[in-house]
């Protein structure tokens, strides 16, 4: 059997269901690994070991009695600490909410538990999912398991770090300007921002109402599809929830890519924000590989990254200001400096700025929709650079905006980021695929096509 810590969620669920593996054994092995590695990674804000072991024992008894809860029965999961887990604080990695206790599970957590998953604890984030890797908060920032001197990306930093390090096979993240896909890119795992409204946001602390998405983070495409299958679905109590029938994403994951039309958005990384040469080479390699697998690659053009980024920032910071204004007025010193600066920016936009950004947003949606009428998926950069050092505020400030993720928060299209290669310095390089609304199935098909051809799911950091 594979080392337990590198076992995929699907393989673990299968072994548990057939009673070849005990959920108690799996949970205990992961908790032991967490105890050993987390002091170097800081992926966790709170480890809920006792509750996890109790849940594992219950799962074991249920399975022994022939009762299956669902496709993730007995499989551990980590939860970003802006997402409510009943009985635990939702701190948002901030002094502001350090004592805030959740009384019920967020819908996404409730669905995972309903499918049998075991919550291991709450994971580090950038403060309120916006700040950055801050050293002036009550908990340290998470670190990258490929090299702990480097940033793991964010804001779902603990989720990315922990999945990549084999602390858990799957995690929940949130994505408002790229916060699932950034850590997926920096840590070399698979991170999906689903179509806006496909996964309920109820019970998740908001950053920006019209840009927030909840997404699965895993080491393989198949696990990501499995997790989305559990998470997706209409929620009448989430005003942004889409009234669509969610798909069966796992079934078609292994279809080959022959005949699929892939639009390559080269200008993002060649003109708008010239990428590190290793990233450029990796993206060209992904395109060539998909072509060899039978996909048709053609160049497509979208608005510039600068313009997408500006629309994202105006909307995000205006909506975030509406949420944070009372605390920023009364307790500005309780925020870390990075979050304080970013959140206060919303105070300086006018109503007209916000409405103009939303008008331009509709035009951008129309352009992406038009493009996706001629191709099945888009291929583009995610991060323009490998992860920078975590102790260099100047490098973080320089590299953080060098990305192509925000366009798809603005438009709401589903987007997946994953490993495209490894740099000469031993850090992950990334690629992003983007699909039509609610067509996550085709997105998984292409992502799996690349994963199968490249063996990206077999590459792990050497951390022990």
């Amino acid at each position, binding site marked *: 059997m594979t080392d337990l810590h590198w076992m995929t969620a699907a393989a673990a669920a299968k072994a548990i269901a057939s009673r070849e593996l005990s959920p108690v054994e799996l949970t205990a092995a992961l908790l032991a690994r967490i105890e050993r590695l987390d002091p170097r990674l800081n992926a966790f804000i709170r480890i809920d070991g006792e509750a996890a072991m109790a849940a594992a024992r219950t799962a074991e008894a249920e399975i022994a009695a022939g009762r299956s809860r669902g496709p993730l029965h007995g499989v551990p999961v980590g939860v970003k600490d802006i997402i409510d887990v009943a009985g635990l604080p939702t701190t948002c990695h901030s002094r502001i909410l350090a004592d805030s206790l959740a009384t019920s599970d967020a819908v996404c957590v409730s669905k995972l538990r309903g499918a049998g998953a075991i919550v291991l604890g709450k994971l580090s984030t950038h403060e309120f999912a916006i700040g950055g890797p801050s050293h002036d908060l009550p908990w340290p920032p998470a670190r990258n398991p490929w090299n702990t001197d480097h940033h793991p990306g964010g804001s779902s930093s603990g989720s990315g770090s922990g999945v990549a390090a084999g602390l858990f096979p799957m995690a929940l993240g949130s994505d408002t300007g790229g916060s699932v896909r950034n850590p997926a890119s920096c840590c070399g795992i698979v991170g999906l921002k689903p179509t806006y409204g496909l996964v309920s946001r109820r019970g998740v602390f908001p950053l920006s109402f019209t840009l927030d998405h909840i997404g699965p983070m895993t080491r393989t495409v198949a696990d990501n599809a499995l997790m989305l299958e559990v998470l997706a679905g209409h929620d009448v109590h989430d005003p942004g929830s889409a009234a669509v029938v969610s798909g069966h994403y796992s079934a078609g994951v292994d279809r080959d890519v022959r005949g699929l039309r892939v639009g390559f958005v080269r200008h993002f990384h060649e003109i708008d924000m010239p990428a590190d040469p290793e990233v450029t080479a990796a993206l060209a390699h992904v395109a060539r590989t998909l072509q060899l697998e039978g996909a048709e690659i053609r160049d497509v053009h979208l608005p510039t990254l*600068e313009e997408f980024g*500006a629309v994202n920032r105006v909307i995000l910071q205006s909506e975030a200001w509406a949420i944070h*204004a009372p605390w920023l*007025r009364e307790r500005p010193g309780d925020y870390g400096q990075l979050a304080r600066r*970013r959140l206060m*920016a*919303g105070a300086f936009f006018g109503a007209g700025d916000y409405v103009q950004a939303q008008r331009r947003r*509709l035009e951008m949606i129309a352009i992406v929709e038009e493009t996706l009428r001629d191709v099945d998926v888009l291929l583009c950069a995610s991060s323009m650079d490998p992860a920078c050092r975590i102790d260099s505020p100047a490098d973080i400030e320089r590299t953080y905006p060098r990305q192509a993720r925000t366009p798809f928060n603005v438009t709401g299209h589903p987007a997946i980021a994953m490993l495209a290669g490894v740099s000469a310095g031993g850090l992950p390089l990334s690629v992003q695929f983007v699909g039509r609304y609610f067509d996550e199935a085709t997105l998984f098909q292409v992502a799996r096509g690349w994963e199968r051809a490249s063996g990206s799911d077999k590459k792990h950091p050497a951390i022990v």
Partner: protein
Amino acid sequence: MDKQMMELLARRAGLDKALAEHPEDVAAAAKQAADVARKIKAPADPRAEPWPPMRPGSGL
């Protein structure tokens, strides 16, 4: 945005305490906002609608 305008807007937004305790952060926030807002291209068509549209009868 000059300092006087920045302070006026900050006070209008109720950020007096932040201005007193973290003046460099308020100034940095104001600069971020000014830099970003000028990059938005207003739609050429005056009839262009914002997203999301009002949808009576749907949702809650």
